[in-house]
C-alpha cells in the first residue's frame, strides 16, 4: 500500500505529465476560430481595419515627405547664392562688379548668373501713383539666369543678348500677376523707371529663389544706358558640381570679394527647403497618434469580445479541465486563438493599408509632367535596359519598338501608370544634340504642340476622370473622360488653339491643332485610360531599385515619370499632389469610422449571443 502511494506519486509527478502537443495546440486554436466563423471574421476584420489605418497613415506621411524631397531634388540641390551682407561699419555691403566673373572661375562651378541692383520701380502704366510699387523689385539680370536657376517660362521668352540691350522686361510669377501681365493677350508694356518696357516673358514660380518671383528683370546693358545703374550684383546664383558643394561654399566669400570676404553671405536654398521637408515629418506623429487611437479602441473591443467568449465558453473550459488540461493549457489555447485571429486580421490589414498607401503614393508621383517636361537634355549614351532589351529577341524587340507604344500587357496590368506621353520623331541611331537654352525656350512658344514636347496628363479629380494636360511649360487645358459615351473628352487649349479628341474604335486620338497630326492615343481600359504615344516614340518601363516603382523613360533614357505600382491595384487612384491632403484624411476618417462601427457591431453581437446562451442554460 505504502509502495503504491509512492509509486502513484512518482507517476503523477514526473512519469505522466499533463501535456498538450504543439500541433494539437494549433489544431485547437484553428478549431476555436473555425467553430465561430462569424465572430472570427468580425474580430479579424476589426484588427484588419485598425492595422490598415495605421499602415496607410504611415504610408501617407512617408510618401508626402518623399514627394517633397523629390521636388527639391528636381529643383537641384547644387545651388548656392552669394549676397552682400552687412559691412563692419554697419552699412549695406556691396559686391564688386567683378564678383560673378571671379566666381565663375572656381573649378567645380558649372554656371553663375547674377542680378544687379537697379534703382527704379515698375508700374502697370504711367498713370499709377509712384507709391504703388506693388513691392516689385527691378533687377538687371544676366541672360543665363533662367538656365542657371533651371527655371521655366510661363510665357514668352527670357532675355537674350539682343533684348538685353533694349527696353524689354521679364516678369517673375507674382510680379506678372500684380501687373496683370499674366492675363493680357498680345504684347504689353509696363512703365519702368520712367521708360516704357515691353514684357517679353513671364516666369513660372522659382521655389529656390522666391525673391525672383516678385522681380522685374531687365538686361544689364539697358539698365546702365537708360537707368544709370552701376551694375553691382545684389545676388549671384551659383550652380556647382554636387560633390564639391562644401568646397565651393568654403571659398565663395573670398572669391566674390577678396578685399572683404566677411561682407559676403553664402546660402544654400535647398538646405532650407530640406529642413522644411523634415519638419513636415512632425505631421506624421499626428497621423500616428490617430492610427494608434484607432488601434487602441479596436484592441479594447477585441479584449471585450475575448472576455465574453471566455464567459460563454465556461462549459468548454470545465470540460477541458476535466480532461486533464492545466490552466496554462487553457490560457495557451485562448491566446493561440487570438494570435491566429490577429495574424489573419493583421496580414489582411497590412495588405489593405499597403494598397491604399501605394494608391496615394502613386498619385503623388504623377504630379505634373515630371522631369520629362524639360526640354530634351542629351544624355549622349543610349541605354537599352529594361524589359525590352533583356527579355525579347532582336526581331521581337524591333516589332515592339515599331509598335511605338508601351507593351500592352504592361499597359493593361499597370494601366494606372500611364501618365506621361511624349511625342517625338524617331531618333533610332542619332545621338541627340543638346539644344541651346535659347532653342529650348523657343520650343515652348508657338501655336501648336511641337514634336519633341512631352504631354503629361495628371488626374485632377479623385471622383471624375479629369486630366490636366501639359506640354512642356504650357497648360494645354484638360480632358474629361465620360464613361459610356462615344466622345471621349473635351479640351480647352490655352494659346495653342483647340486640341482635337476623337473616338475611333474604342480608341481615343489626341490630335494637335487642326487635327493634322496624331500625338497620342488613349485606350479605354478597365480602371482608366491607357495613354501611349503614337508617333515615332518609344517608351520604356524600368523597374527602379525601390520595390514596385517603375520609371517611364524615353529613348534617351530621360525619366518621364516614376510611378508606384501595386499588383492588386486595378483602379487608378490618381490624385494630383495639390489634392493629396483631403484624400488621405477622408480615407483615414472612413477607416476609423468603419472600424468603430464594426467594433460596436461585434460587441453587440457577442453580447446578444452571451445573453442568449445564459438564457438557454438557465431555462
Amino acid at each position: 500500500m505504502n509502495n503504491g502511494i509512492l509509486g502513484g506519486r512518482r507517476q503523477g509527478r514526473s512519469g505522466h505529465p499533463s501535456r498538450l502537443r504543439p500541433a494539437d495546440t494549433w489544431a485547437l486554436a484553428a478549431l476555436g476560430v473555425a467553430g465561430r466563423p462569424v465572430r472570427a471574421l468580425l474580430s479579424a476584420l476589426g484588427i484588419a481595419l485598425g492595422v490598415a489605418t495605421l499602415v496607410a497613415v504611415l504610408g501617407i506621411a512617408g510618401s508626402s515627405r518623399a514627394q517633397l524631397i523629390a521636388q527639391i531634388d528636381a529643383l537641384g540641390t547644387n545651388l548656392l547664392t552669394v549676397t552682400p551682407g552687412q559691412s563692419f561699419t554697419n552699412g549695406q555691403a556691396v559686391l564688386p562688379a567683378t564678383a560673378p566673373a571671379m566666381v565663375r572661375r572656381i573649378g567645380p562651378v558649372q554656371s553663375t548668373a547674377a542680378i544687379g541692383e537697379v534703382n527704379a520701380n515698375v508700374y502697370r502704366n504711367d498713370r499709377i501713383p509712384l507709391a504703388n510699387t506693388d513691392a516689385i523689385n527691378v533687377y538687371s539680370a544676366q541672360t543665363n539666369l533662367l538656365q542657371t536657376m533651371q527655371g521655366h517660362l510661363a510665357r514668352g521668352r527670357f532675355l537674350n543678348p539682343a533684348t538685353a540691350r533694349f527696353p524689354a522686361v521679364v516678369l517673375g510669377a507674382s510680379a506678372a500677376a500684380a501687373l496683370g501681365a499674366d492675363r493680357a493677350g498680345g504684347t504689353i508694356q509696363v512703365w519702368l523707371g520712367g521708360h516704357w518696357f515691353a514684357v517679353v516673358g513671364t516666369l513660372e514660380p522659382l521655389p529656390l529663389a522666391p525673391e525672383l518671383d516678385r522681380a522685374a528683370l531687365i538686361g544689364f546693358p539697358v539698365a546702365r544706358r537708360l537707368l544709370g545703374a552701376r551694375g553691382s550684383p545684389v545676388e549671384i546664383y551659383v550652380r556647382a558640381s554636387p560633390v564639391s558643394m562644401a568646397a565651393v561654399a568654403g571659398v565663395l566669400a573670398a572669391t566674390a570679394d577678396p578685399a572683404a570676404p566677411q561682407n559676403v553671405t553664402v546660402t544654400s536654398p535647398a538646405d532650407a527647403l530640406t529642413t522644411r521637408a523634415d519638419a513636415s515629418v512632425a505631421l506624421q506623429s499626428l497621423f500616428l497618434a490617430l492610427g494608434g487611437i484607432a488601434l487602441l479602441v479596436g484592441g479594447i473591443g477585441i479584449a471585450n469580445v475575448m472576455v465574453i467568449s471566455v464567459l460563454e465558453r465556461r462549459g468548454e473550459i470545465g470540460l477541458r479541465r476535466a480532461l486533464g488540461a492545466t490552466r496554462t493549457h487553457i490560457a495557451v489555447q485562448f491566446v493561440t486563438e487570438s494570435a491566429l485571429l490577429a495574424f489573419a486580421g493583421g496580414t489582411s490589414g497590412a495588405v489593405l493599408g499597403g494598397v491604399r498607401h501605394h494608391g496615394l503614393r502613386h498619385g503623388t508621383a504623377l504630379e505634373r509632367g515630371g522631369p520629362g517636361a524639360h526640354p530634351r537634355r542629351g544624355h549622349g549614351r543610349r541605354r537599352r535596359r529594361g524589359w525590352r532589351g533583356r527579355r525579347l529577341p532582336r526581331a521581337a524587340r524591333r516589332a515592339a519598338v515599331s509598335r511605338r507604344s508601351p507593351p500592352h500587357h504592361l499597359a493593361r496590368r499597370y494601366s494606372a501608370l500611364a501618365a506621361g506621353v511624349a511625342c517625338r520623331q524617331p531618333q533610332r541611331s542619332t545621338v541627340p544634340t543638346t539644344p541651346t537654352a535659347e532653342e529650348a525656350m523657343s520650343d515652348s512658344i508657338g501655336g501648336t504642340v511641337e514634336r519633341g514636347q512631352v504631354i503629361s496628363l495628371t488626374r485632377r479629380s479623385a471622383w471624375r476622370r479629369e486630366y490636366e494636360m501639359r506640354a512642356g511649360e504650357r497648360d494645354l487645358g484638360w480632358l474629361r473622360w465620360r464613361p459610356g459615351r462615344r466622345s471621349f473628352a473635351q479640351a480647352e487649349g490655352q494659346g495653342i488653339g483647340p486640341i482635337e479628341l476623337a473616338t475611333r474604335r474604342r480608341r481615343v486620338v489626341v490630335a494637335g491643332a487642326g487635327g493634322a497630326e496624331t500625338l497620342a492615343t488613349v485606350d479605354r481600359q478597365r480602371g482608366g485610360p491607357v495613354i501611349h504615344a503614337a508617333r515615332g516614340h518609344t517608351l520604356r518601363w524600368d523597374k527602379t531599385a525601390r520595390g514596385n516603382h517603375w520609371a517611364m523613360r524615353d529613348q534617351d533614357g530621360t525619366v518621364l515619370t516614376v510611378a508606384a505600382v501595386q499588383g492588386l491595384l486595378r483602379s487608378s487612384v490618381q490624385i494630383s499632389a495639390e489634392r493629396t491632403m483631403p484624400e488621405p484624411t477622408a480615407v483615414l476618417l472612413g477607416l476609423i469610422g468603419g472600424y468603430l462601427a464594426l467594433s460596436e457591431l461585434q460587441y453587440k453581437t457577442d453580447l446578444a449571443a452571451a445573453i442568449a446562451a445564459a438564457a438557454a442554460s438557465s431555462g
Partner: protein
Amino acid sequence: MTALELDAATKEHPGSPPVMALRSVSLTIGEGEFAALVGPSGSGKSTLLAIAGTLERPTSGSVRIAGAGVGHLPDRELAAVRAYRIGFVFQQFFLVPTLSALDNVASGLLYRGIPAARRRRAAAEALATVGLAHRSGHRPGELSGGEQQRTAIARALVGKPAVILADEPTGSLDTAAGQGILALLTALNAAGSTILIATHNPEIATAVPRTITLRDGAIESDSGSMR
C-alpha cells in the same frame, strides 16, 4: 487496491453564514466497484464528485486516487491526475459540436501528449465498446441524446482511467435512453471499470450494486461494498 478514497473530506463554501457542502465524508471505492451517490438536490452529490475528481479541493480532509494522495499537488500535477486516472461524464455531455464523434472521443487523450493517429485508433476501439462504431464520423448534432451520452462515456473510457465519475448521466435523457446508458455502464463495470455515478433517479439507484445516500452533506447510509 482502492480506486478512490476520501478521508474526512469537508467542503465549506465561504459566506455568511458559511455553507457546509460536505461534512467530514469518508468513503472508499474499491477497484472494479460500481456505486451510486443518491440524495435530494443540495445534498452534496455534485460537490463530492468534484472533490473526488480533483476539480475542487476539500477544505479539510484528504483524497486519494488509485492510492495516491492528491491534496498537496500543484495544478499541473492535479491536471495530470485527471488526464490519466479519472474519466468524467456530464449530464449535458459537453461534446464539441464541430468535431466528429471519433474526434470527440479522441480528445479524451488530448492532454496526454499522444499523437493524433494513436488517439484516433484508441477512440475507435472505445466507440466500438459503447456500440457506436457505425456512428464514428457523425457530429454530435447528428446523434440522438443517448448516442451523445454514449460518445461522452467512450471519451471518459478511452484513457482506461482508474475511476469513471458520472454526474447525472441520465438526467438529460428519456427513460429508454437512460436505461440504455445504465445497461452500458453495468456492462463496462462487468468488464472491469470502476464507476461512481451521482443520480437522484431512484430506479437507477436500485439497479446499481452499491448505493450511498447523502443528506445535507453527510453520508446517511451506505449499502456497503460488495467485495
